[in-house]
C-alpha cells in the first residue's frame, strides 16, 4: 500500500489533486459543524457582497441565504451524486461489457447496438427526458445520470475482455478445466479492472458537471443546496451581483479538477511504464 502511494506521489499534479479533493471532502464533512442551520434558510439581507460581514463572509444570494453555507453543504450534494452516479454507471458498464466481451456473438452485437443508440442520441437530451418523466428528486437525478453514463465504461470493459479473452493464460485456464464464471470473475476481471477504475474518475467528474448543468436549468432538486442551483439563481442578478454565480462555479471547477487529477495520478501509478506521458 505504501509502495503504491509512493508511486502515486511521484507526480506533483496527482498530489495537488489529492490535496484539493481532501479539501472538498473536508468541506462536505464539516458542513454541519460550521453551518448547522438549514443552508436554504434566510440568513441576512439579500445580495450582500462577500467580505462585508464577518458572519456572512461569502455574502448572500437573491433571497438572502448564506452563500458560504450553500457552498459547504453543496459539497455534500456534488460528491454524493458524483459517487453514486459513478458507482451505478460503472457497475452496469462492467457487467454488460464483461458479458459482451467474453461471449461475443449475439450478446456482443446487442450490446454494441444499444451502446450505439445511446451514443447517437445526445446524452444530455436523454437526461432531460428522464428527468421530465421521472421527476427531479435527488434519487431520480442520480439514477438518470448513471443511466446516461454507462456506455463508456461498458465499451472499455468490453475492449479489455476482448483482448484478454484470447491471451494464452485464459486459454490455459480453459484447458485445465476452469469454468466460464471462474474465468470471467477470477481470471479476466482482476486484469481488466485497472483501466476501468481509472476511468471511473472521469465518469465522476462528468456526473458532477451534468448535475450542475441540470440544476442550472432548474431541472434538478430545488430543495437541496446545490452549486448548480446557486449559479442559476445568480444568473438573474449577473449585472450587479455576479459573485453569486462566480463562487459556486469555482467550487465546481476545483472539485472536478481534483477528481480528474486524482484519476490521472492513479493511471500513472498503475501504469508506471507510461510515466512521462
Amino acid at each position, binding site marked *: 500500500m505504501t509502495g503504491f502511494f509512493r508511486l502515486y506521489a511521484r507526480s506533483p499534479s496527482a498530489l495537488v489533486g489529492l490535496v484539493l479533493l481532501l479539501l472538498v471532502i473536508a468541506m462536505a464533512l464539516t458542513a454541519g459543524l460550521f453551518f448547522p442551520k438549514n443552508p436554504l434558510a434566510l440568513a441576512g439581507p439579500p445580495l450582500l457582497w462577500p467580505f462585508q460581514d464577518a458572519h456572512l463572509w461569502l455574502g448572500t444570494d437573491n433571497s438572502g441565504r448564506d452563500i458560504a453555507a450553500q457552498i459547504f453543504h453543496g459539497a455534500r450534494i456534488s460528491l454524493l451524486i458524483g459517487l453514486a452516479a459513478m458507482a451505478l454507471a460503472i457497475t452496469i458498464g462492467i457487467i454488460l461489457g464483461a458479458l459482451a466481451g467474453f461471449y461475443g456473438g449475439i450478446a456482443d452485437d446487442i450490446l454494441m447496438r444499444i451502446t450505439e*443508440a445511446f451514443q447517437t442520441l*445526445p446524452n444530455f437530451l436523454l437526461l432531460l427526458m428522464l428527468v421530465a418523466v421521472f421527476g427531479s428528486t435527488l434519487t431520480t437525478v442520480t439514477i438518470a445520470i448513471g443511466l446516461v453514463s454507462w456506455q463508456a465504461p461498458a465499451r472499455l470493459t468490453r475492449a479489455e475482455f476482448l483482448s484478454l479473452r484470447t491471451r494464452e493464460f485464459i486459454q490455459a485456464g480453459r484447458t485445465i478445466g476452469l469454468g466460464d464464471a471462474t474465468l470471467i470473475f477470477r481470471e479476466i476481471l482482476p486484469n481488466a479492472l485497472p483501466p476501468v477504475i481509472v476511468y471511473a474518475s472521469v465518469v465522476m*467528474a462528468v456526473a458532477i458537471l451534468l448535475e450542475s448543468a441540470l440544476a442550472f436549468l432548474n431541472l434538478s432538486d430545488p430543495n437541496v443546496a446545490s452549486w448548480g442551483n446557486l*449559479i442559476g439563481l445568480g444568473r438573474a442578478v449577473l449585472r450587479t451581483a455576479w459573485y453569486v454565480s462566480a463562487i459556486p462555479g469555482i467550487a465546481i471547477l476545483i472539485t472536478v479538477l481534483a477528481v480528474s*487529477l486524482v484519476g490521472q495520478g492513479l493511471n500513472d501509478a498503475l501504469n508506471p511504464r507510461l510515466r512521462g506521458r
Partner: protein
Amino acid sequence: MRVLALAGRRLLSSLPTLLIILVGLFLLLQLAPGDTVDALVAQMGGGDQKLTEELRRFYGLDAPVAVQLSRYLWRLVQFDLGHSAIYGKPVASVILERLPATLLLMGSALSLAFFAGIVLGILAARKVNQWPDTLISTLGLVFYATPSFWFGLMGIVVFAIKLAWLPPGGFETVGAGYVGLARVLDIARYLVLPTLTLALIFLAIYLRIMRASMLEVLTLDFVRTARAKGVAEQAVIVRHVLRNALLPVVTLIGLQAGTMLGGSVVVESVFALPGLGRLAYESVVQRDLNTLLGIVFVSALLVIAVNFIVDLLYARLDPRIA
C-alpha cells in the same frame, strides 16, 4: 469508391439504431405524468373533462400506445414530424427555423475545438515535460473541469457587462436590418462567446488525446526507421507522426458529436440563442411530445451525418480501412 461503399454500409447499419432510439424514447415518454393536452389545458387556465377528452381525441392521444407508435413511425417515414400543440405549427417548420443557429454554433465550435486542440496538442507533445507542455496540459485540465454554462456566464460578465465588447446574448442585432457581409459579421460577433463556451471542453479533450497520440506514435518503429534514414526531426513529425497521430482524434469527433449537441442545449440557454437545444429544453418543460421526438429524430440524423463524414475522412487518411 470502396470508401463510399464502406461508409454507406455503415450508414445503413445505423438505421436500426435510429429505430431503437425512437421506439425507446416514445415508450419512455408514455411514462411521463401529464401530456401535451394537460400542458395546453393548464396554459388555457383550466378546462373541464369533456374539453380534455375532445382535445385528446383531436390530437390522437386517446388511442392505445401501440397504435400511436405505429402511426408516428408511419408518418416519420414520410418525413411528417407531426404538429406542435404548443407552437401551433408543424414540428418540421419549427425545427427548420431553429436549425441554422444550432448548425452554425456547432460548426464553429467543432472547428475551433478541433484545430486549436490539435495545434496545442502537437505543441505540448513536442515540448513534453517542459514548461510549454505543463502550461498547455494544465490549461487543458482546467478547461475540462470548467462547467460550460458557468464559463459562459463569466464570459458575459467580463466581455459583455464590464468591457461591453461583445453582446450578452441573442443571435443578431434585432431590427437593425443588416444584409450580406454586414449581417454575417454581426452574427459572428454574437457567436464569439457561445462558440468559445461550447468549444471549451472539447478543445481540452482533443488536446489531451492529440498529445497522448503524438507521444504514442513517436515510440513506434517506423519513426525509428525514418530517423535511421536521416530524415530531419521536423520532417519526421510532419511526414510520419502527424497523420498517424490524427487517426484517434478523427474517430473521437464522431463519438463526441452527440455530446456536443447536448452541450448546445445549455449554451443556447445561457446566450438565448434561437436554436434546437433551447427548443428541446422548452419542449421538455412544456411536455410537447411531438416536437421533442422531432428534435430527437433530427439530432440523431445530424449525429449520423457527422459520423458518415468522419468515416469518409478516416478512410481517406488510413489506407488500411478499405
